[in-house]
């Protein structure tokens, strides 16, 4: 499959005027897999594909440094390809100027806190049902694990374990939940790694960096951290594709993606909406239906 991928990318350099191919390579400490930016067909052999290819490379699509390298080809797992769909729907990329090379994926290995990988599946892959990428230009590889899913039968990208954890949390009293997040958010250092590693946090200037008025405190205090984490999660409502980049980037190990999962579940349950599964979909927030639920309104 790795060869198939390399050949496909070579072909793109040769025939489609691609200036940079964003893929995975052994770039980190001890050969850890991270993003590589191949700018010449001679370097295509740097590309790898295996079950350590964890990052969502779509985060690079909106970066000016990367855009400056010319027409982009990007390697996307099925889950990551959803982020590309949202970016295109939100007019952050011109889909026709981009080649998405989708790779069939049967799961990525887990990453331990020290950065090493274990043989266990990455948490979000445990229950993944989307092994064949949808809405991509080229599909690399084959699998017996099912076909590409379209918007109608798409599921929220998450895991049984995560859903169970969220369900357990939601079963607590409000005070207990608040206490849980109080402990979690007390570790938040407001580095904004969650924001920077999110492919969909592309604002030119985050509202957290604006101070007239200061809508939320910039301090890594409990007050500021609650406000920030609520804000971050809600700005991704109906947009988050569940790639988990935020949680895996968090140096404090906060399970931020539980907040995103709450909203993804709500979007699916109340509005039948799964982000990133439909090309050209109108945004969940910013549109409405006259019959939207309102049982909570007095």
């Amino acid at each position: 499959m790795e060869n198939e991928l390399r050949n496909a990318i070579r072909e793109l350099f040769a025939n489609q005027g691609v200036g940079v191919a964003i893929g995975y390579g052994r770039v980190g400490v001890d050969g850890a897999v991270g993003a590589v930016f191949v700018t010449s067909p001679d370097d295509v052999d740097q590309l790898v594909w295996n079950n350590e290819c964890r990052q969502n490379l779509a985060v690079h699509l909106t970066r000016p440094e990367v855009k400056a390298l010319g027409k982009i080809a990007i390697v996307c797992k099925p889950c990551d390809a959803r982020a590309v769909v949202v970016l295109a729907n939100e007019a952050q990329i011109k889909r026709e100027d981009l080649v998405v090379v989708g790779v069939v994926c049967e799961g990525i290995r887990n990453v331990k806190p020290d950065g090493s990988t274990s043989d266990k599946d990455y948490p979000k892959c445990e229950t993944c049902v989307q092994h064949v990428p949808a809405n991509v230009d080229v599909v690399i590889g084959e699998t017996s694990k099912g076909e590409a899913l379209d918007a109608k039968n798409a599921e929220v990208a998450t895991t049984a374990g995560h859903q169970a954890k969220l369900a357990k949390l939601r079963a607590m009293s409000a005070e207990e939940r608040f206490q849980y997040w109080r402990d979690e958010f007390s570790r938040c250092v407001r580095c904004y790694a969650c924001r920077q590693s999110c492919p969909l946090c592309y604002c030119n200037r985050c509202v957290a960096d604006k101070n007239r008025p200061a809508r939320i405190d910039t301090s890594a205090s409990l007050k500021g951290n609650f406000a920030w984490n609520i804000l971050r999660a809600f700005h991704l409502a109906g947009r988050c594709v569940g790639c988990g980049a935020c949680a895996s980037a968090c140096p404090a190990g906060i399970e931020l993606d539980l907040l995103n999962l709450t909203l993804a579940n709500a979007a699916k349950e109340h509005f039948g909406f799964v982000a990133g599964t439909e090309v050209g979909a109108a945004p969940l927030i910013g549109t409405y239906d006259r019959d939207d639920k309102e049982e909570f309104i007095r």
Partner: protein
Amino acid sequence: MSTETKAPDAFEPKIVAFVCNWCTYLGADLAGTNRLEYPANVRIIRLPCTGRIDFNLIVKAFEIGADAVLVSGCHPGDCHYTAGNFHARRRWKLFRELLDTVGVDLNRVYFSWISAAEGAKFQSLVTEIVEKTKAMGPYQEYKSIVAES
């Protein structure tokens, strides 16, 4: 400032209300015109439309020590701007879920449709919110994270 009917140290909740200019604000005005008395704990922030009411304002209200928040606008179909309340309704539906997961007590966040003709509804809802909030006591959890910051 205290009167003989009230113990000076009785808990008086702080309620922040975000309301639209065309329905609920006028509903509150009508409550006044009809002299419908209600507790004095609510502070109304007038905005053009519920469509303008961002979730961040609710968070901010808790940060400044609100014990409960009310968000209110026109009934569906009555929006002065056609659809602001429909947009707002969808956001709130989602935002409540997030607040719930974060552990913000949903008994402290109220949403309502109150038309310009519903002065009595404004009166009864505010009265109810104040009574229920008094029964729950001050919103200690949120106040504590603010105090520690």
